[in-house]
């Protein structure tokens, strides 16, 4: 599983970095991505923005680690060239 630690980042950067990472993974055969954030609004906006991308991303789970920290687990499909 790939891990993207975005603690300290805020919107809209949280989604931008997630999108770049997910696309890298998609073009490299796909896989699972764990995104760590400590900006609660991003926990709502990252899954919704990924869905809008139309790439087939699937949010598997959102875990609250306490305080403002969350983990978002995403299934990234392999992109067809």
């Amino acid at each position: 599983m790939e891990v993207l630690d975005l603690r300290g980042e805020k919107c809209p950067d949280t989604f931008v970095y997630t999108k770049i990472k997910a696309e890298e993974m998609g073009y490299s055969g796909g896989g699972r991505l764990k995104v760590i954030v400590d900006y609660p609004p991003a926990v709502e906006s990252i899954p919704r923005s990924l869905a809008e991308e139309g790439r087939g991303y699937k949010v598997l789970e959102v875990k609250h680690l306490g305080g403002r920290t969350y983990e978002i687990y995403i299934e990234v499909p392999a992109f067809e060239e």
Partner: protein
Amino acid sequence: MERIRAYFGSRYHLVGVKLFREIPEGYPTPAKPGKFCEFVRRAAMGEVILMRAEDEECHQSLIALGFQEPRFVDLQPRIEPANTKAVLIAPVEKVEDPDVVLMIATPRQVMEAAAMLHGIEAKFAGEIAVCGEVIAQPIKTQKANVTFLCGGARMFADYKDSEVILGAPPEVFRELEARVKALEKSCGALCGCRTSDLPQHVVQVFSELGFERGIDYFFGRVDSQNVRIYLNKDTEGRVKYITVHLPIRGEVEPPPGFEARRRGAWTDLYATFKDGEGFELATGRGVKELIQELVEKVRGG
């Protein structure tokens, strides 16, 4: 509420925001999707916008404004339950019965508004800002709030670094308007323009009379009497009035033409005069005589 805009010298309209549970007819919708905070700024420049869910690009705003429920985090502040179908954003005079009124302002303008409202208790976190901190929050608490915006608003909506937003239920702005009117009535007595903002030739007038410069007034002594001079703007923002303030120890009745305020062991006597009516601020003609006459009047001379 145009009076408020004029008093604060704001370049922006006050913005009225109204939430609808059904999509109303007859209002223009945006040509392309954008962000609520961006629509607020456009409304402050005069535009009327009816924003529906499909017009909003920001997911956090959809939650804060009550278009959608959150799925993973109880984001606050937000409109609960989520039954909003449209939001009207327009210059306040074009919104009937708004839920919230917004004023895009500089910190100094917010400071002045807060002083006139006898304080604002602000709560902000730099996230879900325009949509949450100055829309959902004032609707829920029925109190004013101030937001310093969020990263998205600063990045996409073209707010200046020097701009913040004061948001409050319309009643608060009506109160502010009443205070502005009261100030106009007394021409802002005992609350003057910052002397650093005054034209140099006006400052020179009082300097030549031997007055020192305070932050928002000039002070000096005339015939052993302490005198303070406040200069006040009209609703167009022009320096148009002079308020002469004479603090007198003890309780005294105001002479004709003066008003009085008690302050501890002192009575503040003050009177306000309009530029051009017996004196000229631009040249200083008649100013010395006016002050002299008032001092003599207070002393019963």
